[in-house]
């Protein structure tokens, strides 16, 4: 079995040109920033060759840009690798990982409707959580979200 050092070294040499930054935060957590165009290559390597489990992806609106963190856990060395990609806030586009494994299907749908990230190549991009009457182009998890519904009641009436 590989050790933690071997895994990290292997990733660093194999994806020398893709990795922008590597933050070794603690024995159990590693944050690795990569270029957005490399996500399919790096993501599928970690999932398939390193036999990681895909935890989830967190989309974050960081005001200046949009970030996605893909969290993978490697149980055999008790390590959680978070792949960070930074996208342009005006037009966030990234390749879909659904071609590689099925676990990302729903979370990509969720990020697309709540944060407005476009996933190229997703097979069934439709709404997951929000209702049909929700207006296009309004993304509730963006920091600049404002109430669009004029009929909403936000006081308790007392």
């Amino acid at each position, binding site marked *: 079995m590989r050790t933690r050092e071997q895994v990290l070294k292997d990733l660093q040499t194999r994806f020398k040109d893709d990795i922008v930054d590597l933050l070794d935060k603690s024995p159990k957590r590693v944050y690795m920033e990569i270029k957005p165009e490399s996500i399919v290559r790096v993501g599928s390597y970690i999932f398939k060759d390193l036999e990681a489990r895909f935890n989830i992806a967190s989309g974050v609106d960081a005001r200046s840009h949009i970030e996605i963190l893909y969290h993978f856990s490697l149980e055999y060395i008790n390590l959680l690798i978070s792949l960070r990609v930074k996208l342009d806030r005006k037009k966030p586009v990234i390749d879909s990982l659904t071609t590689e494994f099925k676990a990302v299907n729903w979370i990509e749908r969720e990020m697309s409707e709540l944060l407005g990230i476009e996933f190229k190549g997703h097979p069934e991009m439709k709404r997951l959580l*929000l*209702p049909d*009457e*929700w207006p296009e182009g309004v993304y*509730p998890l963006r920091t600049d*979200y404002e*109430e669009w*519904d004029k*009929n*909403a*009641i*936000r006081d*308790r009436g007392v």
Partner: protein
Amino acid sequence: MSFAVNAMLKSPWVFHLSTGSCNNCDIEILDCLTPRFDIERFGMLLVGSIKHADVLLVTGSCNRKSAGRLKTLYEQAPQPCVVVAIGECSLSRGLFIHSYNCPVPLDKIIPVSVYIPGCPPKPEAIIGGVVKLIQKVKGT
């Protein structure tokens, strides 16, 4: 008192509807049916279709996707049909009042007869609430 209302009070059949709750209230409703509380001894029965029901037990904070369907269901219910709001969420939306997906409280969508507060209300409170409902309809 009409025949229908009299029959209803003898054995109110309830239909349970969750409109975006955390499940706790729903479980406490189911709990009422199980041996320790056993509301079936009062003739109350949980039914599977709104068309058989006299009482609508609503839990949850009425999110956008549920609210429209809730209204449709209420219109399908045979009259007289009374609505019981169970739990803080269906009373005032509780913690979720500022949620983007919960725009209006339950009583602005359909008329509510009895409110049972609590997060979640204990089964005793739910039974107490339904008993109050019966007294209210009887006018005692």
